[in-house]
């Protein structure tokens, strides 16, 4: 048995889209493979124990909550960069995704600094992009189904890798055909839903990488996942039928 140490950043502030669903999926899928998820909240003013965390999770918040954590996140920036450079996994959803970029410019034109862990920046847009999304992830040979709801338009730097190509939905900015971003083991996405219950392959990939960081290189046993597949199919169908158009 290996213990996977998870650092949940700002669970009191960034939890708007059922982020505990994603954590519950990681915990259960680790448990049935004989491992254990040890989840620690990392809140305001707390140190980031960079070398002891295998997987960081950052969820989304309302604009106000997000603004409240910005100064504190800046103080954690060095530790998070160090952790990511050391191979820790990072999953950031929605608002958390925006905060991992270099900056976020709000509607008033005010620039909020991010921590620059992902090669991108975000600009507030006039129109919210809301709806079901389906992504193709050729790098994994899989698809991701979720739901997006964001006014920010995220622009990837030249050469940055998206998490997936949009089959249906808006994605990062409603124009590029890209959704999310990945850089090494750092993943950012607008997809909530929550993301992991209906996309178990992605949950297992995160677990495999987190286990590797914890020193265990292993292939996880397959699970039946009938309900997961059924939920993915319905969600993918929703995206095809009524996801936002690019």
């Amino acid at each position, binding site marked *: 048995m290996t213990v996977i140490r998870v650092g949940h950043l700002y669970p009191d502030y960034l939890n*708007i889209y059922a982020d505990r669903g994603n954590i519950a999926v990681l915990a259960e899928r680790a448990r049935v493979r004989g491992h254990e998820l040890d989840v620690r909240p990392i809140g305001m003013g707390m140190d980031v124990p960079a070398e002891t965390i295998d997987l960081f999770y950052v969820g989304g918040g309302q604009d106000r909550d997000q603004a409240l954590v910005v100064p504190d996140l800046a103080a954690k920036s060095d530790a998070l960069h160090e952790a990511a450079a050391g191979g820790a996994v990072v999953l950031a959803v929605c608002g958390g995704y925006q905060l991992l970029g270099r900056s976020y410019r709000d509607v008033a034109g005010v620039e909020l600094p991010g921590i620059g862990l992902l090669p991108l920046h975000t600009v507030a847009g006039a129109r919210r992009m809301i709806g079901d999304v389906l992504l193709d992830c050729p790098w994994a040979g899989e698809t991701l189904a979720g739901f997006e709801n964001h006014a920010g338009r995220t622009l990837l730097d030249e050469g940055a890798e998206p998490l997936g190509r949009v089959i249906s939905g808006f994605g990062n900015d409603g124009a590029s055909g890209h959704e999310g971003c990945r850089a090494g083991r750092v993943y950012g996405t607008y997809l909530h839903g929550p993301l992991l*219950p209906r996309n178990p392959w992605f949950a297992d990939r995160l677990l495999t990488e987190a286990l590797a960081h914890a020193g265990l290189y292993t292939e996880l046993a397959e699970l039946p996942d009938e*309900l997961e597949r059924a939920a993915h199919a319905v969600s993918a169908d929703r995206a095809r039928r009524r996801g936002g158009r690019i």
Partner: protein
Amino acid sequence: MRLPLPLSLEIAAARAAGSVSRLAGRGGGTTLPGKLLWKLDPSAIDRLARRLPQGAVLVSATNGKTTTTAMAAEILRPRVAVAHNSSGANLVSGVASTLIARPGADLALLEVDEGALPEVVRRVRPKALLLGNLFRDQLDRYGELELVAGRWRAAVAGVPDALLVVNGDDPQVGDLGRDRASAVVFGLDDPRHARPALQHAADSKYCLRCGTPYRYAAAYVGHLGDYRCPACGLARPPLDVAARDIELHGLDGASFTLHAPEGAARVEIGLPGLYNVYNAVGAGALAIALGVPIGDVAGGLGRVSAAFGRFERITVGDRRLLMLLIKNPAGANEAVRTLVDAGGPRVAVVALNDEIADGRDVSWIWDVDFEPLLEGLETLVATGSRAAELALRFGYGGLDRGRIEVVPDLDVALDRGLELTPAGGELTVLPTYTAMLALRRIVAARGHVANYWETAA
């Protein structure tokens, strides 16, 4: 430019459309006349409202607005002819339909969707506004809580003479009354019923003024309670009307003492849970502010039965259905809490749809604290168009997958639930809004309950 039709002609045309819709069996036609009128002439609603001798009273909240409005209607009905949108048609078109349907009414008492409130306020220019609570709800449709609260603030500012009745236990809502001397503030005052901690995903946790997390002397329902900011001192405003000495009687009801400047009265309601105490205190505070003696307020509240689908018992052959609507985390948490306090079900049918009225984004089910239901739950029948998603919620929440049956078809799921319920027993059903409507149609088609538009009006 199009010449406006005389109001009476517009109304006649719109009414005829409503009866045609009902005859055609198309969902009751509760909003069709209003929709038509809205199209013919949007300003007709303003004129209809102005004809009311005693004006209009609006009720809005994320949770409980239908029940609160029904309670206020029950209190006011013996004194005044009330036009009340009892079928829950609470958008601008539903408001218009209600005004058309009751031309002889003296007073309109209208439940209004929280998103539609600014427009309805602008058009109807209410003499009083009862604002109950703001919880996160259907983020895909309403947007973030802060946005809704900001729009409410602007709407309230536009009617400076309207009487405001606000829930002081909700930081955002209570604050709307802070600068208005005439505002009536209501809330709960019985720390014995406080929860030990704020629920998961509580909203409005941070001070409106300075962003510091509030400290709660008592948190009752979600973020509603007796709060204070430890940094700047911003606190729950003093309560003008309060519920004290609250007693909860499981699924059968609740009682409390209603305290107002005019005096106090013991109130018994036939609806369960602290959230219904909030609804009753809100309706009571409104009625008192409108001049109803407190004894009559208590009497009226005692006569209320549940607003349709919110909490309903329906006899189906030799079994009963207990139906509790779930539509957002705060409301669903209260439904769960009420069920668990009463012993918790052995079998439950939970129905998740994802139509616009349910919220297309189903992520909210992960913010509901369903876990207290799991102990003692032998079978969960997950149904509705997102049944598999719901099954995952319970599965990853700790319910053995062997106890979960996924039956997307609502009538098959209902039959399965009834089959698992012993004769004479009660089946717990927790549906989202459109699933609730569909389930009601199914039991109505079997002759067990009237269609709501037959009982409404």
